[in-house]
């Protein structure tokens, strides 16, 4: 096995192109488990932790945030809680403090596990993945097109994830996750909701309840049309429960050790209703404050 340690992004892209047998390595919280247990013996490890810009974030010219693939969860929580509250909430539920100090959103995207906690808020917030190759340059992939199957993503073999881009929140965002403990749990299922008041749109992300993380589009459209965006009127119980049903219909879960398909569908509906309750509550306060 070789250990490749580029110190610039250009070197990393060149190494990725030269060595199709190399596995990119960031926090190692997925990769090293596989190596320790002999599940994976790649020809090389391509360590990306010596490329400083991967572990930074910035506000791009269009106002969106551009968050480096190597920013660990702990820093998402500490530095991006106001701008990306849904993602920060999800990040706070990942593993343990040690895992959050090391694990990254880029690694979550690279692994593309249906249970990855970053995915639902990325979907709900219309994140775009910035992939790059030495040969073809930058390619922008909307999160909704990034997840292709269980642990499969849209990256080409010579591409690396440079960053993801996401607009700072203009409305309430919430993340909810079902697990057996408050720490160290892979989601049984999860749900993210984002309200985008400027466009009167709703974003959602359903996690761990289908072969890939996915949006619940019918639920989004239904809710966007029903909400009283101007007046912030109280939620109708019928709207809340229909939103939950539509969110659950977007799932296509399986029975596994963590839960049954029926339980997951039920839980997705519950989380959708709850996150909606929290978000709408916040939104109404915003409307009142502006009135």
């Amino acid at each position, binding site marked *: 096995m070789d*250990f490749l340690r580029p110190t610039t992004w250009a070197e990393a892209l060149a190494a990725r192109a030269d060595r199709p047998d190399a596995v990119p390595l960031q926090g190692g*919280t997925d990769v090293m488990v596989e*190596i320790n247990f002999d599940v994976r013996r790649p020809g090389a490890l391509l360590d990306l932790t010596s490329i400083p810009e991967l572990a930074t974030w910035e506000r791009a010219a269009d106002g969106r945030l551009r968050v480096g693939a190597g920013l660990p969860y702990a820093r998402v929580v500490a530095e991006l809680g106001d701008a990306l509250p849904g993602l920060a909430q999800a990040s706070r539920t990942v593993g*343990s*403090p*040690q895992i959050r*100090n090391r694990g990254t959103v880029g690694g979550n995207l690279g692994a593309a596990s249906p249970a990855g906690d970053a995915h639902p808020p990325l979907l709900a917030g219309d994140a775009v993945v910035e992939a790059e190759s030495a040969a073809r340059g930058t390619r922008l992939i909307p999160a909704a097109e990034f997840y292709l199957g269980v642990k499969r993503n849209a990256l080409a073999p010579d591409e690396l994830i440079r960053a993801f881009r996401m607009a700072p929140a203009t409305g309430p965002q919430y993340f909810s996750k079902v697990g057996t403990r408050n720490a*160290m749990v892979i989601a049984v299922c999860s749900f993210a909701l984002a309200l985008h008041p400027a466009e009167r749109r709703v974003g959602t992300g359903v996690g761990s309840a289908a072969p890939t993380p996915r949006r619940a589009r019918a639920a989004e459209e239904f809710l966007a049309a029903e909400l009283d965006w101007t007046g912030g009127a109280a939620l109708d119980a019928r709207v809340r429960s229909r939103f939950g049903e539509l969110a659950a219909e977007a799932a296509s879960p399986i029975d596994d050790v963590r839960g049954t398909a029926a339980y997951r569908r039920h839980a997705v509906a519950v989380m959708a209703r709850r996150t909606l309750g929290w978000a709408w509550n916040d939104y109404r306060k915003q409307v009142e404050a502006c009135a």
Partner: protein
Amino acid sequence: MRVNLTVNGRAEAVDDVWEGESLLYVLRERVGLPGSKNACEQGECGSCTVYLDGVPVCACLVAAGQAEGREVRTVEGLAEGDRLDPLQEAFLECGAVQCGFCTPGLLVQAHDLLARVPEPGDAEIREALAGNLCRCTGYEKILDAVRLAAARKAGRR
């Protein structure tokens, strides 16, 4: 391959490191610091927790090569000479150590907590230690020890 790193303030040049090897293996088997424990090798137990450039991480999930040029501080580096860190003393006094397997990781993790939050509440202690498993103590005495060390550091006891 060769890996150069600083461990507890000492420069180390470690040879014959396998490219897929973990920092934990390097520390225990090559640098001769067996304090950090290997209990799960998958990030679940926290017994291998060390500081990497000042940030607590599971050494079992850090590739040795990722520690190149970096600073590592292990449980062996918490005491100053023969003088134990107040947290270590509190662990002993409170009976927070039984078999001791989880202790090195808990010490490093709790040490970081007290450095960041000098007087943590119980919820903060529990959250900070959520990734450190102990199969003996039932955790209560560990919480006692962290509270005692915090109180002493704050000069309250």
